[in-house]
């Protein structure tokens, strides 16, 4: 029998971003409108057409993880483990007293622990790597960490979480689908607590691939600007601790926000380009609002997908007008303008930006937006953040293949007693 659906709340956050290596510095960076883009240092970049990206600055996993395990973990696993540690500490969840068979992990990722560079690929795989080498423990653990699902296994193993664990890998919408799926698992009684989020380190393969697709910008990321010329990649990890309302209130947890609604749709239009009518994303947004029991006019802020590619920004604007009306003045902004496109992590780390906006009462800015595209005529919170009391925020994420996700977050006033 399916029990009646439960409400699901966020009780802990963890984030590693190009503008801050924890949630507090990320929050400050969003309010200050910090630009996390810089020349690439993670791999040899001379022969790449695009040489800019949003890398983590000063990331030192040894601080948060055991020193002996760090060399055995892929960068993706290091990043997600550090973000998970922050989120669990913030949630103040005492795992020793929890039923860990009712706690699981759902993360979004596109590449997981895949090699970051040609040098890493050569070191890992034959034929470039010569000879057999069963004795090399670091090589062995890195090879075992390459499957995309490994980042979830690593978090489950570290904390002994025996509930359902998996990764979503739906390109650029993965991190937001992960939050929706983790929420549904609690909502329908399949878990009590879930660690969700996403991770993707900066790697050479998409840097090359998005270049050949002509999707990468020559300088700055300018979402919704008439002079925009593409996105830039970034790297990030994000973890959100989700709990059933009952579980969270019983232990007096801080309720950052409710994950109030979730929707998904597919364009069925093209392998990479969006259907520019905006109908696909609009269906996902409407499903999320209906799931939350909210009307469009109750939404106070839209955290856009906002890639700054020619097609996305016009399509997303059309989708928002389909849902909110052609004259809507709802504030919309693109976090990618500050941290770059963090692929499978983007849906999750940008959702954290939306949750921080709700909790702290501000609108994150769209950096570098100077001359709005005539077809993009909404309020995009250009250039600087604004203080604003918010109750409901919508987060969008759209991926290759017209794979769309939307999640609605609602601010919770009361602290549990």
């Amino acid at each position, binding site marked *: *029998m*399916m029990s009646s659906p439960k409400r699901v709340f966020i009780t802990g956050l963890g984030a590693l971003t190009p503008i801050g290596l924890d949630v507090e510095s990320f929050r400050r960076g969003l309010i200050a409108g910090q630009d996390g883009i810089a020349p690439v240092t993670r791999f040899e970049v001379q022969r790449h*057409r695009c040489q800019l990206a949003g890398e983590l600055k000063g990331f030192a996993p040894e601080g948060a993880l055991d020193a002996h395990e760090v060399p*055995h973990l892929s960068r993706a696993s290091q990043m997600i483990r550090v973000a998970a540690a922050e989120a669990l500490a913030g949630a103040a969840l005492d795992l020793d007293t929890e039923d*860990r*068979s009712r706690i*699981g992990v759902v993360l979004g990722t*596109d590449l997981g622990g*895949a*090699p970051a560079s*040609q040098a890493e690929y050569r070191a890992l*795989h034959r034929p470039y790597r010569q000879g*057999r*080498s*069963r004795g090399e423990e670091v090589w062995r653990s890195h*090879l*075992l*960490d390459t*499957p*995309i*699902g*490994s980042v*979830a*296994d*690593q978090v*489950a*193993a570290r*904390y002994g*979480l*025996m*509930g359902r*664990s*998996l*990764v*979503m*890998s*739906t*390109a650029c919408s993965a991190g937001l689908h992960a939050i929706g799926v983790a929420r549904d698992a609690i909502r*329908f009684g399949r878990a009590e607590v879930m660690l969700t989020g996403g991770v993707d380190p900066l790697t050479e*393969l998409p840097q*090359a*691939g*998005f*270049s*050949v*697709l002509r999707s990468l910008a020559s300088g700055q990321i300018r979402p919704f600007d008439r002079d925009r010329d593409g996105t830039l990649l970034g790297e990030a990890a994000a973890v959100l601790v989700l709990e059933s309302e009952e579980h969270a209130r019983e232990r007096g947890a801080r309720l950052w926000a409710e994950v109030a609604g979730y929707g*998904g*749709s*597919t*364009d*069925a*239009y*093209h*392998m*990479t380009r969006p259907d520019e009518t905006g109908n*696909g994303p609009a269906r996902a947004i409407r499903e999320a609002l209906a799931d939350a029991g909210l009307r469009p006019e109750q939404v106070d802020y839209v955290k856009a997908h906002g890639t700054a590619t020619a097609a996305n920004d016009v399509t997303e604007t059309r989708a928002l007008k389909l849902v909110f009306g052609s004259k809507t003045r709802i504030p919309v902004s693109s976090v990618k303008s500050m941290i770059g496109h963090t692929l499978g992590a983007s849906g999750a780390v940008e959702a954290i930006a939306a949750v921080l906006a709700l909790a702290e009462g501000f609108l994150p800015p769209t950096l570098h937006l100077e001359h709005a595209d005539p077809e993009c005529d909404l309020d995009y919170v250009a250039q600087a953040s604004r203080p604003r009391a918010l109750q409901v925020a919508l987060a969008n994420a759209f*991926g*290759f*293949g*017209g794979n769309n996700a939307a999640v609605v977050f609602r601010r919770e006033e009361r602290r549990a007693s």
Partner: protein
Amino acid sequence: MSEESRRRARDASERLVVTGMGMVSPYGPGVGRFLEAVRGGRTAIRPLREADVPGCECTWGAPVPELDLDAFDHARTFRRAPRATQYATLATDEALRAAQQNAGSWKAERVGVLLGTFRGMAEVSEQIWIKLVETDPRFVPALLFQEVVTNAVASAISLRWELRGTSYSISSGNGAGYHVLDLAAQALRAGRADLILAGAFDIFTPTNHQDLDDLGLLSPSNLCRPFDVDRDGLLMGEGAAVVVLETLAHARARGAAIQAEITGIGVAHDAHGSFGLHPEGRGLALAIREALDEAHLSAEDVDYVGAAANSTAILDRAESRALHSVLGEAAARVPVSSVKALTGEAMAASDIFNLAACIAAVGDGLLPVQAGTDHVDPQIELNVVRSSTRRRVRAALANSYSYFGGSAAAAVVEGSPD
């Protein structure tokens, strides 16, 4: 509770039924060809091309035979697609025919595509890496890059049948198949879709074979013999398989022929160290218990176990421990076999192959044969099916267990309620 009242106690809008199946297995396209082979004990394992296994101790596996694409409808549109997309497309086509579903019979916004995989588009990413390493980042072909995302297969299926419902592509080690069933059940019961194409794919690649050989996971004797005392590693398989899932209420409303009901699904994780399986198979035990509880069945009610065992020392033993801990004394009696003995370890696709074998077993009582296992490991104590066997199967338990990472799942399959 009687058999019928037990199942009728659930609302038809929450009961999950299979109305179509399709696959491309190491035997080639078609569920029928696969079933005939595994129930006759005929193996698909054979020597691999020498060029794919240079310097490897293990040189055998179970690749999908080369397909005659011209024999299929609209072959032109996917002749150049990655093999994963070709196989999943053919499997979907077969599943939809069996379910008697097509573009005229559904609301496109209400049909979802949910696929699971272990290595995703590794075949494509390996080609891109070779371009990167041996030529120049600027020479990566755009058409190759668009196929490298894990959801490229689901996107191609959505495009081909113009499906506009929600679409997930997931991974949870090499055992993602029943995680997909779990998410499909969640989505159908939450009213997010009317019909879901749920499936899995995984493709043999030379690099993966060589990596696993270097790691010592493949059988140096080129023998796949799950549960055998002399087992010494797995052999690689590959393929794709898809099932059409809907609620019993929806299937009845459209007058569909129901192939089987999935009465219980359990999903869990060993959560034991990095990359290790728990010696007692605790994640799998949790998953089996959850699946049986949801089906309201006890250990004695299980008439067949479709095992995940892949001929590796650790996984086969941990699966056996999990079966003993949940089924108790019944564990030594119930017939058990793993289709991987004949198809190799086809990773996530193996889960759906196993599901198809279990669905067929509840249909006509014929069990897959565990060929190659001569001496059952005394530490394992299971009733391994060693020759062609027919018996009444009311409920079959299908296991999924990842030798990477420790993700585990189980599904209970029962016959059509109609």
